[in-house]
């Protein structure tokens, strides 16, 4: 039996966290057999706990989260081996929320480790803008960058971005009270690295190396290129006031963004303009120094947080090439048409079933007893007194 400890993975977003969480969720029995608990009854169970801890309304989902953190903490305290808790929005927690979280998990008696996976800002910033676009926002890339660079950090976009991406600040909030050996910074390898490298780092820090885990997951969160992201932004501008979130999610985010536009190859990728690239590089260098000075456990290489020698070619997503956007739009139209056809076929099938049911109902209506009752009701509905009697009858019958 492994010793009792808690590995608390608190972010950051866009660092392969969904993949890690899906692998952990899908392999719970194997993990338990190895003395590792990943407490969650549903794939988003720990997300709900994070919402509860931070009192974050999330489109109504928070109503399913009432008490979820206390439940998670209770299960953690009762488990005698290692517990892994992972959600990237925990990076946003304020100091009082962090204090509550750590105390509820048994800190300082229990050995709590904080894990923070991090990726270089040069990739994180465009990725966060794209994520915003996939969540219905219409803000242009340049304005997004201006908001992030504004030292006041006013507005929802900048405040959220920095609260979940500013690595030294997150470490201050989450790990200010922990010895450095219980703080682990996992770096995301640079673009073009072997795809297994990040998993190996996660496996190392969470003690998963050597376990026979199924690493296949269904849920993916792929990225789009410049014309595709620009297209979704234009779509947002057009439909935000007329398409409800419940329809936007399956049709725009899932069907168009994830299943169609992110599969297109050959489009220019999102990157930072040269002036912002330099600013992000300087900021990253200062962060690297800050992390190094803390003496925390680095899994990977802090150099991963620094961009390459030269910025990648910048294609302005606020002024994309019309031909590229048109091609992306054609793919989008095709996908929507296919979905329309599928829905029409489904509708026809349902119509046929409704027709069958109506016929069955009609046969039931033709019975003499039903016709007599129907006649009586029609007669009663014609007069005020009759309507009153019917109303009473219906209330008595609970209709």
């Amino acid at each position, binding site marked *: 039996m492994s010793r009792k400890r808690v590995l608390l993975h608190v972010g950051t977003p866009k660092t392969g966290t969904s993949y890690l969480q899906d692998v952990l969720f899908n392999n719970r029995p194997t993990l338990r057999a190895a003395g590792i608990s990943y407490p969650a009854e549903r794939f988003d169970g720990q997300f709900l706990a994070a919402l509860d801890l931070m009192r974050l309304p999330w489109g109504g989902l928070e109503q399913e989260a009432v008490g979820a953190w206390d439940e998670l903490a209770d299960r953690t305290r009762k488990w005698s081996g290692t517990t892994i808790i992972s959600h990237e929005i925990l990076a946003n927690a304020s100091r009082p929320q962090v204090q509550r979280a750590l105390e509820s998990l048994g800190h300082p008696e229990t050995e709590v480790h904080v894990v923070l996976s991090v990726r270089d800002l040069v990739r994180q910033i465009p990725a966060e803008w794209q994520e915003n676009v996939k969540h219905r926002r219409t803000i242009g890339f340049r304005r997004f960058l201006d908001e992030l660079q504004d030292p006041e950090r006013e507005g929802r976009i900048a405040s959220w971005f920095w609260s979940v991406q*500013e690595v030294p600040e997150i470490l201050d909030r989450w790990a200010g009270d922990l010895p450095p050996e219980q703080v682990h910074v996992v770096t995301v390898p640079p673009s073009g690295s072997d795809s297994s490298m990040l998993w190996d780092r996660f496996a190392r820090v969470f003690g998963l190396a050597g376990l026979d885990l199924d690493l296949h997951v269904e849920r993916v969160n792929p990225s789009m290129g410049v014309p595709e992201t620009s297209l979704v932004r234009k779509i947002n501008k057009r439909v935000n006031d007329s398409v409800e979130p419940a329809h936007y999610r399956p049709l725009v985010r899932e069907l168009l963004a994830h299943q169609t536009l992110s599969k297109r190859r050959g489009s220019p990728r999102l990157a930072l303009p040269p002036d912002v690239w330099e600013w992000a590089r300087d900021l990253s260098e200062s962060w690297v120094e800050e992390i190094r000075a803390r003496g925390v456990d680095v899994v990977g290489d802090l150099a991963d947080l620094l961009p390459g020698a030269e910025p990648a070619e910048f294609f302005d997503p606020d002024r994309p090439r019309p031909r590229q956007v048109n091609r992306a739009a054609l793919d989008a139209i095709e996908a929507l048409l296919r979905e329309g056809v599928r829905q029409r076929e489904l509708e026809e099938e349902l119509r046929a079933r409704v027709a069958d049911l109506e016929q069955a109902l009609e046969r039931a209506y033709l019975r003499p007893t039903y016709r007599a009752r129907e006649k009586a009701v029609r007669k009663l509905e014609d007069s005020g007194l009759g309507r009153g009697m019917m109303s009473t009858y219906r209330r008595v019958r609970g209709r």
Partner: protein
Amino acid sequence: MTGTDARGWGWVAHLREGGCTPWAEFTGTAAPDAGPFPGAAQLELARRVNLAGGSTDVVRRILGTGAPARGRQEFLLRGAVAERDYGPRPVDPSEVPPAELVRVAVGALAEQLARAPRLPAPAPQRRRRCARGSGVLALPLAPVDALLYDVWASRAARGPVLPWPQWTVRSAHLERVPAALRFRRRGEEWRATGFRRRVELTAAALGPVIEPEAVEVVRKVQPLLGGLVDPTRRAELVDRVLRPWMEARTGGTALVVPEEARAWARGVAEGIAADVRRAGYPVRGDLGTLWAMAEAGRARPLGERVLEVTVQVLCDGWETR
């Protein structure tokens, strides 16, 4: 690393004891606490609660809580934390925007409400005799902006709803008429409930205007409550605490319909008039009242006033006047 000096902890202690001195004028000191140092928004809110005569319990809760929902993560207190090369720029508490103070305040309010003792069961109502049923459904006759505002205020108590300007503009884009203003349907439903049912339009059917800032407080507390208590308890708190409190706060002026949504609002008025004429409902007053929308006024609640109302509730509880 963040360091907090003795003057900062001195101010925390001062506020916990009911002090009201602004940070810029404070000179005392105290030893640090075990917990995290409160943010500038929490500290400034605590000072305002003290100024309004709030209890030390409320202040302690405010100082020990983070801000709920999205927004700036925290405001560091300028002059009390060590300078860092990263993180948000520390601020003087007097510079924290009212909206951020309100965010902390509504979080504290929602928690206060969630912790309230269970309410005694309502007195059983005398069963109405069913088919006796004569009755009049009085539908409101008022300018359409007042009708729309009343619908929005009711929704704020029922569940998440957009702020007034966005709600009206979005409804306009969707060409959506609120169910409460579909008078013909409401009349038909009423008539189907029994015999001798009548429907009429009268100015008396619309209650006094609820203060927009009170609606705003309820609109902000409601979704937070959803994350703190189960749906049954939430419904109980909304029906028996939040809504009665809001409905008792009358006396303000309704918010005006933004320019972008005025044509839609006029269309709603026309729809109501057409419904009434077609159904032949008697009108006690002038149907033309529907079009008498306010031309000028404010289109959103005042941030400072929302804060004032929130602080008042933190101090006095959800009392109905």
